């Protein structure tokens, strides 16, 4: 088994990308896009129009479109970052560079852990060499498709603006990059300068639909069997709707791949960690843990922290319950709820003061939670502030949310059974207080548009999508509010909208386990090996764990030691093995030779052993072991009434001796013996078999 760490990613929106080689098959985990790399590009804006207009007039060249003209642009040179430093061109998209270098034809299976892990898939599937089977949960596939379609729709606006472009844009040339401020340069070429190869112009809507045709969707805990030998199962990771961890079972070992997992989930199906129990090897790719470590540190080392973790936890009878107890008592529910209430109070403060609120967050679970909290706050305070959700896929997403109870957590489902809807915000739609619109420039929207209002619209990079236009509208208002997720470089993100009078609120939500949770979780699973990203090494001070911990580095391939010496096989033995086998010496070992009838079914090898196969070996031994003791042989031949003469011959090298036992009477025969061989030479069958039996009785035979 081999493991290659292609990219460590950047949290929720850009999950890690890895390749695992197991049983001769190559499995790719996730194929994401780094959308934070949109930041060096300038969003479309009135200013940009003006700027380009200016450059168009000042420019001596005859370029028909501005993107072709590099010389006249007043791009700032040097390290100060301001609006002028941004690239005014149709944005390209940053893929995982090492995946682009990988031989895609060698990939057999792609396993998707979250919708974000799908965003780069169309680049793979449009490659004619790519032939892998892609698996994703039904919900992840659905949401992933909508995200890709939305991306294509948002991008279309910039394409229309800049017009068609050549195969290699100006900004991607070295001399242009050299002129960029360090912060932007680093995004473009990476810290070590190697990322430049990862840039791609965006795929088309046709690429997306072709890609989706190849995705095989699964339910949670549904068994998919690849090539008869790999059993693949997705289990909920609790992070968001449809996100999952993977279990890969083969007759050699059970492997679990852990993506970002969250123990407390208010929207999606809860983290199914029990199902991963018994995995031999854990690939711990829960990327976010590291980002949160330093905040956790205080709580982790404080003397009042939870009692020391016992080393043999998983062997205790109530281990599962104890772990669940620990994990659930961890006040994440309360924490998250507090944060959401806080955000809502800020949002309402703004609207009460006459300002509007822009929420360009695209984490579906988070959006739904915010909507639920907002609905509750609005209803309890009898406020009539309208909420707009503006996205090309808002309608379809809404339709989907109405028909996917299987992907929601228990509490949501109870709500449904008690004859309420799954989501309270859906009532607002019926009451005409929440509106869904595909785009910002539509006459219907303008007809009902009211400010102050609360708007959910993409994209979180603040470079593309409807949020760009709304931000330009509101950035000067002191009472308006922008809520963005932590993890995005806020200064850079807001750069094109400076000077901003608008308030900006950052919020962070868990995208993975905490270190302490991970410790309990891994101890619970009781694996033999755990693979962790190297960056966690400095923070992990776990003692007495029963598994071996292996750290991996980016773009490094790791060989994982074997878990078992052999392969699990189900044997159908139709008769009592003890009766037909041979007991070896004094030990409690039974041995029999068997002729198998093999089949591979659902990742399991079955071997049928029938009567005839074992019985045959009973009458004539097939294998003999040990040495023939010359003296015993002579004695037993004498007992059979034979006269013998023994002769010993040393080989030329003197290393091995050959003994000859001549049978003189009653009939002539010869036995030639070495330490590993006995050859019986006799002129008739009955004598030969008597001699053979005599020899075999001295050996261990089966």
């Amino acid at each position, binding site marked *: 088994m081999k493991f290659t760490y292609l990219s460590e990613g950047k949290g929720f929106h850009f999950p890690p990308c890895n390749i695992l080689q197991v049983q001769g098959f190559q499995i790719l985990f996730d194929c994401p896009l780094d959308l934070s790399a949109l930041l060096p590009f300038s969003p479309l804006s009135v200013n940009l129009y003006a700027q380009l207009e200016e450059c168009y007039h000042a420019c001596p060249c005859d370029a028909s479109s501005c993107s072709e003209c590099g010389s006249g642009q007043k791009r700032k040179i040097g390290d100060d970052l301001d609006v002028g430093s941004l690239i005014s061109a149709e944005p390209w998209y940053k893929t995982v560079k090492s995946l682009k270098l990988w031989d895609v034809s060698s990939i057999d299976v792609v396993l998707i852990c979250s919708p974000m892990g799908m965003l780069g898939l169309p680049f793979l599937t449009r490659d004619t060499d790519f032939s892998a089977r892609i698996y994703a949960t039904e919900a992840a596939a659905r949401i992933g498709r909508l995200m890709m379609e939305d991306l294509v729709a948002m991008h279309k606006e910039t394409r229309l603006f800049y017009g068609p472009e050549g195969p290699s844009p100006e900004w991607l040339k070295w001399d242009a990059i050299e002129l960029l401020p360090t912060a932007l340069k680093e995004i473009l070429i990476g810290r070590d300068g190697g990322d430049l190869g990862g840039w791609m112009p965006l795929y088309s809507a046709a690429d997306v639909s072709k890609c989706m045709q190849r995705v095989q969707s699964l339910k949670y805990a549904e068994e998919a069997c690849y090539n008869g030998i790999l059993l693949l199962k997705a289990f909920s990771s609790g992070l968001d709707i449809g996100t999952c961890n993977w279990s890969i079972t083969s007759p050699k070992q059970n492997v679990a791949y852990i993506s970002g997992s969250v123990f407390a989930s208010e929207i999606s199906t809860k983290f199914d960690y029990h*199902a991963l129990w018994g995995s031999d090897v854990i690939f711990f790719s829960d990327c976010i843990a590291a980002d949160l470590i330093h905040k956790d540190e205080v709580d982790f080392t404080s003397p009042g922290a939870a009692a020391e973790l016992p080393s043999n936890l998983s062997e205790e009878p109530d281990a599962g319950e104890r772990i669940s107890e620990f994990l659930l008592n961890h006040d994440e529910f309360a924490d998250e709820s507090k944060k959401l209430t806080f955000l809502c109070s800020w949002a309402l403060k703004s609207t009460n003061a006459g300002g509007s609120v822009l929420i360009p967050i695209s984490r579906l679970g988070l959006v739904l939670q915010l909507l639920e909290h907002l609905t509750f706050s609005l209803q309890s305070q009898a406020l009539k502030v309208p909420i707009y959700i503006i996205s090309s896929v808002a309608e379809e997403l809404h339709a989907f949310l109405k*028909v996917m109870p*299987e992907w929601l957590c228990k509490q949501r489902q109870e709500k449904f059974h008690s004859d309420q809807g799954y989501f309270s915000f859906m009532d607002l739609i019926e009451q005409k207080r929440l509106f869904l619109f595909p785009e910002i420039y539509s006459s219907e929207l303008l007809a009902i548009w009211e400010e102050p209002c609360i708007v959910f619209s993409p994209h979180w990079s603040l470079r593309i999508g409807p949020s760009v236009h709304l931000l330009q509208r509101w950035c000067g208002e002191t009472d308006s509010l922008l809520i963005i997720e932590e993890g995005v470089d806020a200064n850079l993100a807001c750069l094109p909208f400076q000077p901003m009078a608008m308030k900006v609120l950052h919020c962070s939500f868990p995208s993975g386990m905490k270190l302490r949770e991970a410790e309990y979780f891994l101890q619970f699973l009781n694996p033999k090996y755990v693979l962790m990203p190297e960056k966690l090494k400095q923070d992990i001070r776990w003692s007495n764990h029963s598994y071996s911990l292996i750290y991996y580095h980016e773009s490094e391939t790791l060989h994982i030691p074997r878990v078992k010496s052999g392969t699990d*096989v189900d044997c159908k033995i139709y008769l009592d*093995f003890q009766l037909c086998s041979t007991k070896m010496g004094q030990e409690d*070992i039974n041995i029999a030779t068997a*002729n198998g009838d093999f089949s591979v079914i659902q990742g399991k090898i079955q071997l049928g052993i029938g009567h005839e196969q074992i019985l045959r070996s009973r009458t004539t031994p097939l294998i003999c072991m*040990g*040495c023939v003791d010359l003296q015993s042989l002579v004695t037993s031949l004498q007992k059979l009434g034979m006269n013998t003469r023994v002769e010993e011959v040393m080989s030329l090298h003197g290393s091995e001796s050959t003994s000859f036992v001549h049978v003189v009477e009653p009939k002539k025969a010869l036995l030639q013996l070495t330490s590993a061989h006995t050859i019986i030479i006799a*002129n008739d069958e009955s004598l030969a078999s008597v001699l053979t039996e005599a020899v075999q009785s001295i050996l261990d035979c089966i």
Partner: protein
Amino acid sequence: MAIECLVLGAGQEVGKSCVVVTINGKRIMFDCGMHMGYTDDRRFPDFSRIPCARDEDFTSSLSCIIISHFHLDHIGALPYFTEVCGYNGPIYMTYPTKALAPLMLEDYYRVMVERKGEEEVFSTQHIMDCLKKVTAIDLKQTVQVDGDLQIRPYYAGHVLGAAMFYAKVGDAAIVYTGDYNMTADRHLGAAQIDKLQLDLVITESTYATTLRDSKYVREREFLKVVHNCVAGGGKVLIPSFALGRAQELCMLLDDYWERMNLKIPIYFSSALTIQANKYYKTFISWTSQKVKDSYATRNPFDFKHVHKFERSLINAPGPCVLFATPGMISGGFSLEVFKQWAPNEGNLITLPGYCVAGTIGHRLMSAKTPTQVSIDQNTRIDVRCQIHQLSFSPHTDAKGIMDLIRFLCPKHVMLVHGEKPKMESLKARIVDEYKIPCCAPANNESVIIPSTHYVKAEASDTFLCSTLSPNFRFLRNSSRGHSGSSDTETAQPSLRISDDRVAEGVIVARKNQNPRIIHKQELPDVLGKEIHEVQGALCVPTRTANAIGKEDLLQEQLPLLHQLYLKLADEVAEVTVLKSEQSLHIESVVISVCHMDNCLYRLCDESGNIPETTYFCCKWSAADQKIAWRVISVIKNMELINS
């Protein structure tokens, strides 16, 4: 190890489905239904027969309950069993079943309470408390009930959320089909299941002997009689349960009304049906592919022509279509409307394809109008209206049952949920055509079936490579190809492996350990002992005559070894004789022409060699003694021609 099935209900009858299956010590109750035809003790399964050890209650005796779908004959006794009998363990059903079951049960509860003098066996509160204990699961989701028991639902068609259940304990596995439909209908898809290794399939057999024609014709027929009736100003009563049939027929009518531009109202009597429509809209992904594809534009369960029915409308003038609960006219509102509408010959009553004995529906099925039906001792109703029997059913027909059994190919089949004589004939077909043992036990009978048990072994890589590796197969294939070449072809490849024993393993079992399967080569490592080869050898003389004077000139050119080859291929025909340039191979026996005068393997009784004798040196593994001596006797008794 065995599988024990105790049939508590639906044994040689339709109603109160309940089979308690014990697989390797794990006990599962499949369905917990009630019988609509009875109001006494016989309406529920006899739970007291569930095997319970001395200090065990139902909760500890059963590992779990699995409910296949929301029909009362499959779920009707569940609130009674959990809330009155006290079962408190896990209960599994699909998401739609969990959502729709309370509607079904409350519908029944209302009928039960309305009936006079009938004691209340459970309450609305019981229904709610019971459903809270249910774990909802998704299709194909594999649930680990406990360390050993694994269950998984498969799509069954029949009604929304209906599932067949696969259950596995250790190596023993069964499928309980519940009710299913092998053909798609207007709103649901056909049953779908994986090919599984099964010891037992417990299947419904409602239509054990029926074969049905095209659905389309039957639908058109239904629409025609309904249209004729309302066109003549008549009223149509469709007695049906709140869920399932009502939605399917309503889809059919709503669509027809749209196409024909009809304005006649369609009513639902029950608020439950309207509530149920909401669930149908939500669980659209459990309907047929065609319905699923259309939901983004318009949810097909948003009926356009459907209104809520008021009691005052019963005797209102003008035509209408009314869906009234309960089905089979077993009481309640449908009975009330029946009393009013049946005497008018302009009206129409449609009956489902199957009505439980004891219901009015059942009596009407065999009746010819005009007729009289007695409702109770004092009331008789003149039935002059038309009666149309719906011939489409959400159950599979006999062909579907046979197809499913052929596909799953289990070791045993058990029939439930059917009528005894029909089940007997289906049973005979299964035994005759598929050679699969089949039984159809009566209620409260118990059947024991042996279960599969595998020995868990660990196979070594070397062994697996020798058996599984594609290279090995390739080699074997190619050698087979060569062995068909003609005998006169002398230049043949020298290396040809066709030894089947390459695939042979050695099982090593140590006490208290899983056995290991290894390759012969690995034995020394595993046991710490060297292999000792025991062989037999003999240098066999055969007479040789000179070619001169012999007539057979054809053989003249052939080398001695080849002559022997032809002879052996003829005499020991049952084993393959292989020939290389210097030797012949039969199993482990190697034969070559011996040119050494003092060959070690030559045992000469007489001194000196006989001039016109050729010697063949033979050597073999002790295991092949028998064949070796046959070869030797052939050599000894033959005569070769020397060129």
